[in-house]
């Protein structure tokens, strides 16, 4: 086993070179380069954490903005609804009034027309009475040779016209 056989001859050289090379590794690589590498990693982790934080903050802000937009939108919608309702009510009442006015004038016209018709009918009835009385008196005069009083004839005709 050379490890033991050569120990006396080589131990000093082994110890010396291990210390030299391990010392080089420790001071140049371990102390010199490793902290920089770990620093880079820490910096990256920090940047990632910061970015995540910023993203989270931006998300929260977006949420808040959306919320306020929603509130504003709801208010706007409500306002629009009231405006529409008002306009609708106004239009409805206007229409009603106009309808009522039109109805009134139509009713007036109908009443006038009915009155005119009634007057015309009455006039026509009176005329028919007169013509009938005249005709009846004429007929009586010619057929019976009687000359009757006009008022009497008219009363008789009226009675006949009324009772048919």
């Amino acid at each position, binding site marked *: *086993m*050379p*490890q033991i056989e*050569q*120990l006396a*001859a*080589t*131990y*000093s*050289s*082994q*110890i*010396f*070179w*291990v*210390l*030299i*090379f*391990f010392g*080089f*590794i*420790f001071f*140049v*690589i*371990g*102390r010199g*380069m*490793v*902290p*920089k*590498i*770990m*620093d*880079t*990693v820490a*910096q*990256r982790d920090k*940047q990632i954490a910061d970015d995540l934080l910023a993203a989270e903050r931006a998300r929260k802000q977006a949420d808040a903005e959306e919320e306020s937009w929603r509130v504003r939108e709801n208010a706007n919608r409500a306002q629009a609804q009231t405006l529409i309702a008002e306009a609708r009510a106004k239009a409805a009442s206007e229409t009603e009034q106009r309808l009522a006015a039109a109805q009134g004038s139509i009713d007036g016209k109908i009443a006038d027309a009915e009155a005119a018709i009634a007057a015309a009918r009455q006039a026509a009835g009176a005329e028919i009475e007169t013509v009938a009385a005249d005709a009846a008196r004429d007929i009586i005069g010619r057929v019976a040779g009687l000359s009757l009083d006009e008022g009497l004839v008219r009363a008789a005709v009226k009675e006949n016209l009324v009772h048919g």
Partner: protein
Amino acid sequence: MHQFTIEPLFGSAHWNIAGYNIAFTNSALWMAIATVALLIFVAGGSKRQLVPGRWQMAVETFTGFIDGMLAANVGPNGKKYVPYIFSLFMFILFANVLGLLPIGVLGLHAFTFTSHFSATGVLAIMSFSIVLVVGFAKHKLHFFSLFVPHGTPALMVVPIFFVELVSFLVRPFSLGLRLFVAMMAGHVLLEVLSSFVIDSGNANIGLFAIAGLPSFVLMVGICALELLVAAIQAYVFALLTCVYLNDAENLH
């Protein structure tokens, strides 16, 4: 066993400092190769891009892994040990994996310096020393309360203290020997099996069919297992160092 032999390279056999030999051996060469490979690997991942490429992602995975291990075992105080644990883990991992490279087919000899306790022992003693220094610097003599767990009956305090003290003092040995034994055992196993394949093949075709071929199939599986062991032993070494550092940082 030749694969574990340490040989001086480039005529450096007689280099020495204050009488101690410091020959640049094949072991030192593979430490240098692991160091350079690790340097290239980490440097490739040091572009510091905000959006990492694959390479940077790979390096960051390792630093994140060590960071997570320390955070889980030591807590927030463990952050300052990341450079040390990272160096330890990556050095051992690269050494283990590079030692498994099949560069024998190119006529070169891979050498796993983590299969020498003279190398792993240095790393283990270093970890243990850090635990001692941190423990005594942070808790002064209170650090000895580590050896008396909570709820120990008064009668048992003294025996428990010595039991715990021994288990504490054994740590550097278990830490260094575990890695050395695991790496060496794997390499020896592969060597034994490959000698079965070659020797039975040289003997006759019948022996090759009943011994060589199954050994070869087994070797394929064990090579995969060794890659796993290479990573796991590096992980265990780093993890146990974290656990010991936790004792030093937080006592119980």
